């Protein structure tokens, strides 16, 4: 180890944000965006393990056709609901923005902190409160509606636990709104001198577009969830057909949020990928503007396509066709990004450290997820695929293959900056191999199962689906193992990692111009920016 060497190289590093205050209390009351980011990391990682436990339970149960001693139908539905709700509301939505975003956004802008540090801490605790409220439904009154809470089942038929879960999701939505608001104001107001809007890193463009969605879409979810609560407690009947309400209105409201929400999940991931691809190709990003504006374009279009979840809900044919066509448009800005990343790698000096592997994994899996999305967006095909395992495979390719790959890549990329230490590259690569193979083994067969007609959310299946289901279950254990290796690598890095230099990857954005880990106020002197963010060659 060359700790003596690094000491002399960074005389000022002995004081940093990690040792700026000590003791658990200094963390719990911190206003430092970097520490808040890490607290989100610990929280989200824990929730991910819980959500993963339910996933493995579901998959284990489905390994055998016929009833198994593992889960009865009722428990199966509850497992599925908690798995989905935890993964969506508590892992993938907050994952990248609240954790990586919180950590890097102010540093990449050359700011000392986010605009409202106290609000930032508050939104962390609001998130915790929401997670606890939602989790209490696991103890008091389990929910079996699926994470979509479709009415009238959720309002008129099932247990009152729905109220708790919905209230938890409402609270976490509030946290999401406050984080988005904080990021928008920070991006507008706290850029370092010379950091014009066309010099901000692509990660920031992605987080900025995400924040816009958070601000514009989440309030609709909030009111929808409140209405579910009102129906269950007061019986107001806005969604209950027995009382004159319309369950399809619920679907409109729900998807008006939840479709944009999938871009809350994926846009930050695309931001991470843009950073990784340039850094590991040692080449200026190709088409900065195109990538930047395509984020905003995706955010805008995402509000116009919710009807593609309702092709078979009795929506008019014309509406179906219109939603179908608009949905296809989302492919355009997405493809722009993909082609720009490929052009960036072309003739670059590409190296394949763990973060880059995850970036390539993202591009591969997200492409499959995206292309199968086109199938689902075609009204005719969707009639066949709707609510089958094809959909399950599609959204796992997009959410897990997309967002989680980027999250893992982002963790390994920014790890040296966060902790001032390196992770074992071998550990990262093994984790990648396991997750990537396991992922395809788990979810590719589900496309086939879906095409064969196996419905989703079912506790059992026909005997002819057995083989593919078993393959899928084996894959799920590989994924689990992969994340375990990833976790061990991270913990090992924190405890025993080699000391990192300020800029181990030779990247160009501002966070690499300060020490690793950064001082409490990010920079010892406020940087002045004179060129674009990816000034390689």
């Amino acid at each position: 180890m060359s700790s003596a060497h690094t000491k002399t190289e960074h005389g000022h590093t002995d004081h940093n944000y990690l040792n700026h205050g000590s003791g658990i209390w200094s963390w719990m009351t911190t206003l430092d965006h970097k520490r808040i980011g890490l607290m989100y990391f610990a929280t989200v990682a824990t929730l991910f393990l819980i959500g993963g436990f339910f996933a493995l339970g579901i998959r284990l149960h489905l390994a055998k056709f016929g009833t198994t001693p593992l889960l009865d139908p009722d428990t199966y539905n509850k497992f599925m609901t908690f798995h989905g709700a935890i993964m969506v509301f508590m892992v993938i939505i907050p994952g990248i923005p609240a954790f990586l975003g919180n950590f890097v956004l102010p540093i990449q802008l050359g700011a000392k902190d986010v605009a409202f540090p106290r609000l930032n801490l508050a939104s962390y605790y609001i998130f915790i409160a929401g997670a606890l409220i939602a989790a209490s439904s696991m103890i008091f009154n389990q929910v079996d509606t699926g994470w979509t809470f479709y009415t009238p089942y959720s309002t008129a038929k099932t247990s009152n636990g729905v109220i708790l879960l919905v209230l938890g999701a409402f609270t976490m939505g509030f946290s999401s709104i406050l984080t988005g608001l904080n990021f928008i104001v920070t991006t507008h107001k706290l850029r370092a001198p010379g950091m014009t809007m066309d010099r901000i890193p692509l990660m920031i463009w992605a987080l900025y577009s995400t924040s816009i969605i958070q601000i514009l879409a989440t309030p609709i979810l909030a009111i929808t969830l409140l209405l579910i609560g009102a129906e269950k407690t007061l019986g107001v009947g806005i969604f209950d057909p027995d009382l004159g309400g319309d369950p399809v209105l619920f679907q409109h409201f729900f998807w008006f949020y939840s479709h944009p929400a999938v871009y809350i999940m994926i846009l930050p991931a695309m931001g991470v990928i843009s950073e990784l691809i340039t850094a590991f190709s040692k080449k200026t990003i190709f088409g900065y503007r195109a990538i930047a504006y395509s984020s905003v374009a995706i955010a805008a279009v995402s509000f116009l396509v919710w009807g593609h979840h309702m092709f078979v809900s009795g929506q008019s044919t014309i509406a179906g066709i219109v939603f179908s066509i608009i949905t296809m448009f989302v492919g355009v800005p997405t493809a722009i990004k993909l082609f720009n990343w490929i052009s960036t790698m072309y003739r670059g000096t590409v190296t394949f450290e763990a973060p880059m592997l995850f970036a390539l994994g993202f591009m591969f899996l997200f492409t499959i997820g995206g292309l199968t999305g086109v199938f689902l967006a075609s009204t005719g095909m969707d009639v066949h695929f709707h609510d089958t395992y094809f959909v399950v495979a599609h959204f796992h390719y997009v959410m897990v293959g997309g967002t989680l790959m980027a999250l893992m890549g982002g963790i390994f990329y920014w790890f040296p900056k966060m902790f001032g230490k390196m992770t074992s590259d071998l550990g990262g690569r093994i984790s990648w191999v396991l997750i990537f193979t396991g992922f395809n083994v788990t979810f590719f067969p589900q496309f086939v199962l879906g095409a064969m007609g196996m419905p989703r959310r079912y506790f059992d299946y026909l005997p002819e689906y057995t083989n593919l289901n078993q393959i899928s279950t084996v894959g799920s254990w590989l994924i689990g193992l992969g994340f375990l290796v990833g976790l061990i690598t991270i913990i090992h890095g924190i405890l025993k990692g080699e000391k990192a230099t300020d800029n181990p990857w030779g990247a160009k954005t501002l966070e690499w111009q300060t020490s690793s880990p950064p001082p409490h106020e990010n920079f010892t002197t406020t940087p002045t920016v004179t060129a674009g963010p990816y000034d390689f060659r």
Partner: protein
Amino acid sequence: MTSVSSSSEFHHQHHFKSAEHQYASSKQGIWLFLCTEILMFGGLFVGYLIYHSLYPTVFKNGSETLDWKMGAVNTVVLLVSSFTMAAAINYVQRGLHKIAAIMLALTIACAGAFMVIKYFEYSHKFHVGTVPGKFSLVDPSCAAGGKRAECESKISALLKNPAELEKNHVSAEEVARLKAVISQPKWEMFYGFYFVMTGLHGVHVVAGAFLIFWVFIKTLRRKVGPEYYTPVEGVGLFWHVVDLVWIYLFPLLYLVG
């Protein structure tokens, strides 16, 4: 522009360049938050419009059973409170703490008055049974079971009993209106919207009153003044939005037939 941060009382936070910088950022944050509030109510308004077009008679008859006089008084109360709030901001900016505190206290009083009037409106509805779903005198479960007429007889029995009516301050005119309402299928729909919309608005009024109380204390302690008045202004903007929502709710619920 001369820097106001030189004031002895107020220091801007370390990550802002100046007090103006901090003020502009805070203001942007507050406006963004208000957008989300308006969008949230927007969802309810969209729902209201949809059901209004589905069940026009229900909504017309329903709105006739609301007491537009009480609604109008409440509108005036809120308009006055918006005025006192605006005045309070102005006085804080000019450093007139005492009168600013009085204005804030008046605003809180208006919020209280609004809620008291609302309480009378709500309790009257609970007496006559025009409440949403579960609590309505027409049991929704028997309505669903096709025994609607039988269930409705409960509420019409009340309406036929003069002693009961008198006890609940129901006039002959109101009896006629109530009958018109409950003769419509799905009449509970209107009260569902009425209670959810005014209820959520009421929650905002109460939250607003607490926020105003918070800046009231700040004003008394002179934590705000000409050099720093962001909290007062922010709370004021929130209060105006609460007011604005009511300005839309009142005609929509009480007047549109």
